[in-house]
Structure formats: structure tokens, C-alpha cells
């Protein structure tokens, strides 16, 4: 793995040296900004290339003069210093020319910005909420709502297993959108500032607690696009990717129906009485995806930052206190109110799991109906 990467790294270096001269693009890694998948992202890309080329031309011009001067006007070649040291005319010329170039650049920049920020008349709206460290999507027109968390296994991250192709860019529930619809995203946050970024859409939008920012997109082709959280949001900032799937209207409608069916099945599951084994199995899943980021897989937490579950007065004390803490969180800490995030089944099973794992053995069992009663 290491030797291979090192060899590839050295090849990249060599490749880049050649590329800078020839401008060929090449597989394996990407040197330039993506063109993206929308009209806006193409405009942003074109603007990027325009300013990039202006910079390259001016830069090469200045560098050419400098390099010529360095090789010609040197004492060892007998150069005698000239005595000129000011010229108002020259100063005015080289103040005016950059100014005019900038004015020229400002025109396409302004039109692109206005188009990018025009969120009027959307066909549908999706609320995107950042959480430490996952995303929540609420389809405001369809009453669909779910969380999207990283699915890359821990042992790939820690190097115990070979890393998969989509290492750190895979999630359990991708956001699904229809093509040819103007979709407005309402971006906000539940805790700290995050930033929702899918490069193929051509923009990122900060998710800020107390604010609802909007942005929009309209995809033309079905496809799968990956993105990441772009604003430092704490420990697992690097581990909350975004996967966006664009579907044709037909497939999208089928997906919506499927989501609604799953919701009904969940309501049914909440009605039945669960066995200890079922609760423990489900609870472990919920714990791994929701709790382990802070409280750690072994329930020990991180001293001074995140409290342990193992032996904690809440997880071994009265059940009511435990339910209250999970559902309502603790203000002023990273412990969120999970009542609004998780289903009755999830909360019941994870509390059961926490009370009977990591050396905690209260023997308590919490049923979904207990959670429903506590709401």
C-alpha cells in the first residue's frame, strides 16, 4: 500500500511537471475544478477558467520580464545600473491597465453571481440541517425526513481493512432529487456551523444555527454526486460526507412512495413489544451510527471532552433520567436532544443497549411504547 502510493506520488509529481507544459488531463486524480452538472456550475467553471487564464497571462508576462532582467542585467555580465527611478506616466499606465482588466472581469462575475443567488420560483424545497456529524434532509412538500450518516467502517479508517473505492464518501441514506426541477435548498444547522457542499452543483452554502440560508440547483441528467462538509464543525468534520442522487421524475416518484411505505412499517414496529435480543441488536446499530462518534465504540468517551457511558450515573441510574437525557440532551454541551432525531424504536433500543453494555448490567429493558409515553 505504502510503496504503491509512494510510487504513484512520484509519478504524479513527474506527471504534473509535464502537464503544466502540455495541459493534458489524466486519470486517477484531478488537477482542476470540476465543470459540474448544472448550468450554474458550468458558468462558475467558465468564470474560474477566465480569471485563471488572465492570471496566468499576466503572471507569465511579469515573470518573463523578471527572468530576462535577472539573466541580462547582472553585474557579472558587466551591466551598468541605469539611473531612472520614477515615471508618473508609467505608474498611471500600470495602475489603469489592471483596473480595466478587473472591470472586465467583474461583468461575467456579476451575472454569474446574480444567477447563482436567484432562488425565486422553486419547484420544490428540501431543508438541509447540519448536525455534529451528519446531515438531515426534510422534504418540505412530501413529508419525508431522514438522516444521512457515513457508512465507511471504522476498521477501514483505522487501517485494519483495505479501504473501499468510496472511502469516506459513502452514506446510508443519500439525498434523492428529481431532474429538471428547480430545487431550493434551505440550509440550517442544529448545533455548530457546517457547510453543505456538492462540487458538481457549483456552490457551497454554510449551515448556521439560527439562520436559514437558501441555494438552488437544477440537474439535467440522472447521476450520483458526492460532496463533503466544508466548514470545520468539530471532531468528525472530515467524516460527514454528502451523497446526492438525481433521478428521473418517474424514478423519483417511486422513491417517494417507497419512503412513505417505510414510514408506515416503522410505525408498526413501534407498536409491538420487543424482546431483549431484538432491542440489543437494534440498539447496537443505533449506538454505532449515532452515539459512538462521541462516546466511542467502547463506551468510554474521551476524557474531558465526551462523557463515558460505561459506569455513568445516568446509564446505570433510574431509567427515566436516562430517557430524559437521550431525548432532551443537555444544554450547553455537545449532547443533543435526540427525541426529535430518532424514532421510538431507535431510542428504546439504544437506551436498552447502553444500560446493558460496556460493563453496565442493569438488566433494564425499554420498549418503544415507553418512549411514546415519554414524548
Amino acid at each position, binding site marked *: 500500500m505504502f510503496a504503491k502510493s509512494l510510487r504513484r506520488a512520484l509519478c504524479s509529481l513527474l506527471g504534473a511537471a509535464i502537464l503544466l507544459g502540455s495541459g493534458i488531463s489524466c486519470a486517477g486524480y484531478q488537477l482542476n475544478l470540476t465543470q459540474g452538472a448544472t448550468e450554474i456550475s458550468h458558468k462558475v467553471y467558465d468564470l474560474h477558467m477566465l*480569471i485563471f487564464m488572465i492570471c496566468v497571462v499576466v503572471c507569465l508576462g511579469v515573470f518573463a520580464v523578471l527572468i530576462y532582467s535577472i539573466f541580462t542585467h*547582472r553585474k557579472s555580465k558587466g551591466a551598468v545600473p541605469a539611473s531612472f527611478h520614477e515615471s508618473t506616466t508609467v505608474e498611471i499606465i500600470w495602475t489603469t491597465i489592471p483596473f480595466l482588466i478587473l472591470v472586465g472581469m467583474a461583468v461575467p462575475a456579476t451575472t454569474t*453571481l446574480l444567477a447563482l443567488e436567484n432562488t425565486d420560483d422553486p419547484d420544490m424545497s428540501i431543508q438541509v440541517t447540519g448536525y455534529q456529524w451528519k446531515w438531515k434532509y426534510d422534504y418540505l412538500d412530501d413529508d419525508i425526513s431522514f438522516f444521512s450518516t457515513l457508512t465507511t467502517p471504522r476498521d477501514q479508517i483505522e487501517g485494519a481493512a483495505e479501504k473501499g473505492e468510496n472511502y469516506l464518501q459513502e452514506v446510508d441514506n443519500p439525498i434523492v432529487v428529481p431532474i429538471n426541477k428547480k430545487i431550493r435548498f434551505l440550509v440550517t444547522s442544529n448545533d455548530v456551523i457546517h457547510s453543505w457542499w456538492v462540487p458538481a452543483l457549483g456552490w457551497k452554502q454554510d449551515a448556521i444555527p439560527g439562520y436559514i440560508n437558501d441555494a438552488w440547483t437544477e440537474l439535467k441528467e440522472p447521476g450520483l454526486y458526492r460532496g463533503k462538509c466544508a466548514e470545520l464543525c*468539530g471532531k468528525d468534520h472530515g467524516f460527514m460526507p454528502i451523497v446526492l442522487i438525481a433521478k428521473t421524475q418517474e424514478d423519483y416518484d417511486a422513491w417517494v412512495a417507497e419512503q412513505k411505505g417505510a414510514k408506515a412499517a416503522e410505525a408498526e414496529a413501534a407498536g409491538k413489544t420487543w424482546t431483549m435480543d431484538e432491542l440489543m441488536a437494534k440498539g447496537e446499530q443505533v449506538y454505532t451510527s449515532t452515539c459512538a462518534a462521541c462516546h466511542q465504540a467502547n463506551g468510554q468517551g474521551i476524557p474531558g*471532552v465526551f462523557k463515558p457511558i460505561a459506569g455513568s450515573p445516568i446509564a446505570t441510574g433510574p431509567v427515566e433520567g436516562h430517557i430524559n437525557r437521550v431525548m432532551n440532551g443537555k444544554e450547553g454541551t455537545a449532547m443533543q436532544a435526540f427525541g426529535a432525531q430518532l424514532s421510538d424504536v431507535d431510542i428504546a433500543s439504544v437506551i436498552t443497549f447502553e444500560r446493558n453494555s460496556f460493563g453496565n448490567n442493569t438488566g433494564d429493558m425499554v420498549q418503544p411504547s415507553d418512549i411514546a409515553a415519554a414524548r
Partner: protein
Amino acid sequence: MSTATTHEGHHDHHPTGIMRWITTTNHKDIGTLYLWFAFIMLLIGGAMAMVIRAELFQPGLQIVEPQFFNTMTTMHGLIMVFGAIMPAMVGLANWQIPMMIGAPDMALPRMNNWSFWILPFAGTMLLSTLFMEGGGPAFGWTFYAPLSTTFAPKSTDFFIFAVHMLGFSSIMGAINIIATVLNMRAPGMTLMKMPLFVWTWFITAFLLIAVMPVLAGAVTMMLTDRNFGTSFFSAAGGGDPVLFQHVFWFFGHPEVYIMILPAFGVISEIIPTFARKKLFGYSSMVYATASIAFLSFIVYAHHMFTTGMPVAGELYFMYATVMIAVPTAVKVFNWTATMWRGSMTFETPMLWAIAFVFLFTIGGFTGLMMGVAPADMQYHDTYFIVAHFHYVLVTGALFAIIAAFYYWVPKWTGHMYDEKLGKIHFWWSAISVNVLFFPQHFLGLAGMPRRIPDYSLQFADWNMVSSIGGFAFGLAQVFFLYIVIKTIRGGEKAADQVWEGAHGLEWTVPSPAPYHTFETAPEIK
């Protein structure tokens, strides 16, 4: 030499040993203290950068935990900005400004002592957070609320106090420089005859006085939010997390010019010396510096294009930001015109200065690209910006500081540095720094966010290249430490006029400069 000997007679009763350094009010001693403090911080901050690059060498988590990784990026930024670059610039100012304007010392020598001696305590307090329960600050050097308030470790209060102290130190240093420049110039040295290094620092000092209190305000609001139940930055309490960013960047943007303007001054001293030709467009350089300083106050929200600012705000900040390219371009053109048809030699300081002009220009251009708001929607918070600000701060500010060291160290110590080692240091650094930072442009454009301890596989190759460059560049600065010590301990005796083409009052005094210079003011024609 005779003036120096007579002075030594009745000034010899200053304390010796450690008390000399603790009680000193001499601008040269204090300059030395500042420079050593900055160098130690550079090495500590550099060690943190090595941890970062080592973790990013390969995908996966190998060396440190994510929380500690965030602490490293945070502390690396804070230490380099507040511990290395700013104190190094103040150190250069202390040594050079009195000598360049023909003054015997700084205007406020006791305050000068105090503004230095606050620093080691502030630095220690900042570093001590690493050993506290919960770890050090882990919210980035920009410490955005609410990550730095509600969600931060307990040690954050120590960080806040350290920032307050650093602010005191900077404000006092700035007051001292303004007082010195306005009151202590030798007769005949009008403002428009001052060396450019003095001019750039004079303007920088006003920036410092204007914005350090704003930073103090930001951290004070954080302090009360954290401990006394206020809600300046908490949406839940009716406050506004974006307010923090406005306050921070109103400080933060002028701050980047605080770090680069004195560097412009250094380069404007060095290039004419080795081109043996007067600086082209002296007055336009002064006006360009003042324009950049003015613009720095009215462009700050270009750091916040993705926060959901109204489109009118985005347009204004975009237009204002790209305007900075004009005076900056004027500076680069002036340096180029100074070199044009000069008679150049390429001693170590000149090499660093030329590298500055080339590499700072690259950093300036990427800055221009990011000023264009719609494109910044893609660039923002990626490795593209990491590459940008390292080009302006490392190959910009730091290269200028190193250039200044080689340029003036013969005057400070009386010894020539080893030219061969200086050139090795230069080429080693100049090559490795590009291997380190150039690939980060590719990473950013390809979509790698900043401040992540682990990344997906398409970023693996360039990260490895960047890390290799990083280790080589880090090692080069340890080599620099060897050169510094070697130069202080001995070396070829330096002449008073160290460089053939140098002009300025500092070259009229002996090398090493005596403890007190210009007790009788020189006459400037």
C-alpha cells in the same frame, strides 16, 4: 568607531547575564529577544505542521486522533500568526527603525520592554492548553462561534486570555513605533525621505491599533458567552453566530496586511541594494501601501461569501476586494522596474527577495481568484485557500523575514553569514516549499476541504507529495537555526558598509552596531 568607544565608557553599568535581558530597554536587545522568541515559535508551530503533514501523508487515521488533529491545525495557525510572523516583524522594527531614521532608541523604551515580556507569558499560556483536560483549542485559528463557545473545551478560556495579552503587546508595540517615527527622526528626514521599511511599518502600526481592540472585543464576547450567560453569538439566546465572523474578519483581514506590509518594506530595501539602482517609484510605493491599508478595512466580508450574505453585500465585497489587486500589482511592477537595467548580484538576501516577488505574486493571483464571489463558492474552505495563504504567508512574509535576517545580520552581529550555507538554505527551502504548497492548489480544486484529518482516495497522491515537501521544508528551517547560531558565534568580519549598493543610515554605523547608536542625530541632506 571613536563615538562608540566613548559611549561605552559611561553606559557600561547596565546589568549583565539574564537580568540584562529582563530589564533591558535597549531597542537592539529587545529586537533580539523578539527575533529569538519568533524563531522558537516558528519551530514549535513548524513541529505542529509536521504532525499535520504526517497524518495527511496517507489516507486513514495513523498518528493522531481527529480531535488532536484539529488542535494541531488551530495551534499551528495561532502560533505562526501571533507567535512567529508578527513578533519577527516587530523584532525587525525594533532593530532597524531607530537605526534607519537616525534615532538613539525607540521613543518609549520601558514600554518596549513590557510589550516584549508579555509575549512569553502569553505564548506559554497558549501552549499550556495542550496539556489540559479536554485538550487545547480545536476550532481553527479563526475560532468561529459556536464551535469555540458552547462546544469548545475548557482550555478555551486560557486561549482567550492569551489572545488578550498578545493584543496588549501588539498595541503597545504599535504605539511605540508610531511615536518613534513621528518624534525621533533625524533632522532633515522628512516623511517622504524615510526608508520604505519604516514607511510600511508606520502604516502597519496604525492597522494594529485599529484592529487589535476589535479582536479583544471578539474574544471578550466569547468569554462572557462561555462563562457569564450572555448570548452574543448564540442563536438560541437571541444572538448571532455570524456576528462573530463579522467582528473576527474586521480584525482578521487587516491582520493579513499587518503580516505582509512590513515584508513589502523589507523587499523594497533589499532589491535596490542588490540591483545597485534606486527603488523605482518610491512615492507610488508609499501611496500603494497606504491604499492597501485603507482597502483592508472595507473588504473583510469576502471571507464570508458562503454565509448567506445578501447578494448586494456579496457584489460590494467582491468589487472592493478585487480592487486590492491594483496597488499590489503596482508594487510588483515597481520591484520589477527596479531590477530592470540594474546591475544585479545574487547574494543570499537577494535570492530570498526575488523568490518573494515570484511566489508572492502567485499567492496574490490566487487571492484575486478567490475575491471573485461566484468562483469562491467553490474555492472557499478548500485546500485552494490553504495553498493561497501559505504562498502569501510562507513564501511571502516568512521569506521576507529570512531575507531581512541575511541582509541585516552582518550589521547586528558584525559577522558575515556563511554565503554557501545561506545559498543551500535558500535553494533547499525554495524548492521544497513549492513541492509542499503547489499541489495543494490541485487538491483544493479537486474538492478537498481544509481542516480534515482524513480524506477520500482521490486526494492520496498529492497529499503524499505535499507531505514530502513539508518534511523537507521543515528540516531546512532546522538547518537555518544552525546557520543563525554559526553566524552569531563567528564568521568573517563584516564591513560597516556591508553591501556595495546599500544606502541608508544603518550602514553608516559600525558593524556590529554599538549598543547605542545616533546619540547625536545625523544630519540628512
